[in-house]
């Protein structure tokens, strides 16, 4: 009997010490917060690349309709946002979404355990977006994810995986963020998606202005079409400006918060203000996308 009690006590002690090897409550909360925000930026980015492409096609249709100097050879409606170019961008946003989703799953009680599916999506989309395979070290961290039923063993293994994955993924996440920076920049000389969207809108505005300002030279029907094009172009120019401003801020915060999370995982006492700011900015961006929806 005494021997049995000793064994039970030893078992409990082992359980307590193993639980203590998991993440601290602060690490859990911040990993969840960062993960949710990153999952959302991935989702928003994915939708926005499609919206930009659709917007460019729509504006080019209007341009061809109102500008009779354009010919059949000008009919590259989606240029430069071709399906291939857009798919490459979507891979980058999907990788961020998967990374965020994975962190949330590792930091919560979630035992639905499709962790491996999320992990595979992260590895594959990161490789496509960055055009290179991940190092064995990073793949190793991902492969340590354990699929199984909930127990403190699993919680500990999840924590161990988080502690390996977060530092290992610091650079790939920053590299993915850098890809997005160019695409959401309106700075002089930038050559990304939002610049193409803005330029298409300005071109449409330029063409529609000529008709709208031409007085009675054009019929009411032609004028109506030109006014429609002018309004579409003005809305798109303002949309591009707002999205660029907010997205650039959020992507900058993503990188700061990413660095902060790595430090927090390695050193519990590290300040986490940047993660808080990042999570708040993602919410603002999501709200703005709703307002500016096509």
């Amino acid at each position, binding site marked *: 009997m005494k021997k049995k009690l000793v064994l039970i006590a030893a078992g409990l002690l082992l359980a307590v010490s193993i639980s203590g090897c998991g993440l601290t409550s602060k690490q859990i909360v911040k990993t969840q917060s960062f993960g949710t925000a990153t999952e959302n930026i991935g989702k928003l980015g994915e939708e926005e690349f499609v919206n930009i492409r659709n917007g460019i096609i729509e504006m080019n249709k209007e341009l061809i309709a109102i500008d009779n100097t354009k010919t059949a050879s000008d009919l590259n409606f989606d240029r*430069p946002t071709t399906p291939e170019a857009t798919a490459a961008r979507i891979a980058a946003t999907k990788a961020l979404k998967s990374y965020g989703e994975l962190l949330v799953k590792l930091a919560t009680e979630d035992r639905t355990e499709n962790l491996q599916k999320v992990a595979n999506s992260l590895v594959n989309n990161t490789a496509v977006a960055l055009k290179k395979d991940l190092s064995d070290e990073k793949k190793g961290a991902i492969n340590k994810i354990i699929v199984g039923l909930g127990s403190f063993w699993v919680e500990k293994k999840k924590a161990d995986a988080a502690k390996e994955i977060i530092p290992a993924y610091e650079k790939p996440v920053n590299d993915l963020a850098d890809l997005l920076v160019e695409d959401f920049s309106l700075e002089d*000389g930038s*050559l990304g998606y939002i*610049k*193409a969207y803005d330029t298409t809108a300005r071109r449409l505005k*330029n063409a529609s*202005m*000529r008709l709208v300002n031409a007085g009675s030279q054009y019929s009411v029907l032609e004028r109506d079409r030109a006014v429609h094009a002018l309004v579409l172009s003005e809305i798109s120019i303002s949309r591009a400006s707002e999205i660029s401003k907010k997205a650039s801020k959020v992507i900058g915060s993503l990188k700061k918060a990413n660095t902060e999370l790595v430090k927090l995982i390695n050193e519990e006492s590290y300040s986490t203000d940047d993660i808080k700011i990042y999570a708040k900015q993602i919410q603002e961006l999501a709200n703005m996308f709703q307002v500016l929806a096509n």
Partner: protein
Amino acid sequence: MSSLGKELQQTIRNLETLRDSQTPPSDDAIEKLDVLYGQQIDLIDAAINQNTEKYKAATASLKEAAKKTKEAIDDLAKLEQAIEKVANAIGKVTELLAEVA
């Protein structure tokens, strides 16, 4: 970022200011802007090698166009001269783009 892209953007911005300062806007300015917007889209779509003579010539030509359009904003009498410089820059960028097409 490419300096060609920056010079192109500056030229576009100046020409837009000139277009918007006139009632009705100059047809020349509208036409040249249409071509410049098209070239900007082409540049986004193309992988341009910056270490070529054509790239340097196009950049220098756009720099001159940006300068002259800025002067025309302050003195509209210089608009015709500025439009000529823009046309010249358009030609150089067309040559550059033809190389990667």
